[in-house]
């Protein structure tokens, strides 16, 4: 079992993610340089947070054309596990691996704070250790996290239970006050139809050690590791 963390020019959460996987979860992990046209022998790929290509044009708009993204798309189409965190989520939307787009925050501010997100779907490789309705305290740090999609796509996400995380109060109640950025229906994370590609704006890798204020985020990495272990056993 091996994780891969993609490094784009401007990624800045690549080392945090690598650290959590290797030191907290205790799993093998490699960096994957954006110029590589293969993801090597990795069994799960993470697109980390940051500001790839300086967010020029639109967030994630240039990174999606990196050679590595061809390999990531191919990997995802074979059922490979792909998770995009923050800028990684933006890149997955731009690349068409997830529907919708992340718009400028409604209040136009860059927001860096702990938020609560409620787990809406546990039947994904990224949340199978969670309880439905479980509330995780995880930080956000973004200027463009306002999730948008058309009404038809939204209905499809709802019908197929693909809204994986929603911003909520600490007690799990959904309201406008706990929606930091104006996202449609408090959406903090979604998955694709096949459920092997996840994107989320909050940063679980920044909340995986109690020393950093919360270790709620590590359950996502543990879920992924469990999934990979089961896949390895089955093959």
């Amino acid at each position: 079992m091996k994780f891969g963390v993609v490094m784009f020019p401007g990624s800045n959460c690549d080392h945090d993610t690598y650290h959590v996987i290797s030191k907290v979860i205790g799993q093998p992990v490699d960096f994957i340089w954006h110029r590589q046209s293969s993801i090597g022998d990795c069994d799960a790929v993470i697109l980390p947070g940051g500001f790839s290509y300086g967010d020029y044009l639109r967030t994630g708009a240039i990174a999606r054309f990196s050679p590595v993204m061809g390999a990531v798309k191919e990997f995802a189409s074979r059922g490979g596990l792909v998770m995009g965190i923050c800028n990684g989520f933006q890149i997955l939307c731009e690349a068409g691996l997830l529907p919708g787009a992340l718009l400028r925050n409604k209040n136009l501010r860059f927001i860096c704070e702990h938020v609560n997100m409620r787990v809406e779907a546990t039947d994904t490789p990224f949340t199978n250790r969670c309880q439905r309705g479980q509330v995780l305290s995880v930080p956000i740090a973004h200027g463009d996290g306002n999730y948008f999609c058309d009404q038809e796509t939204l209905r499809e996400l709802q019908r197929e239970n693909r809204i994986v995380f929603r911003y909520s109060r600490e007690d799990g109640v959904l309201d406008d006050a706990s929606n930091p950025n104006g996202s449609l229906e408090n959406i903090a994370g979604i998955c694709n139809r096949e459920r092997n590609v996840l994107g989320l704006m909050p940063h679980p890798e920044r909340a995986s050690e109690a020393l950093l204020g919360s270790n709620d985020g590590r359950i996502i990495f543990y879920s992924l590791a469990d999934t990979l272990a089961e896949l390895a056993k089955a093959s």
Partner: protein
Amino acid sequence: MKAKIYVTLKPSVLDPQGKAIHHAVETIGYSGIDDVRQGKYFEVTLADGVSAVDARATIERMAREVLANPVIEEYRVELDSDS
């Protein structure tokens, strides 16, 4: 030959930046403004010898695939041979 590409948010997409600008111009005294929508403008210079037909095809494709995100944006292309 030059191409001009205008990229704007679809009418159905909220534009908080446009709203902030609208609010600001009203605050400093501009009246009669109903709405402000912010967009992007690109000028592309084409290499000598590219035909107008090829230029339009290239720029249209570039606008669709790169400059605009069709999920949230629309675009309009003008070639200076149009005028």
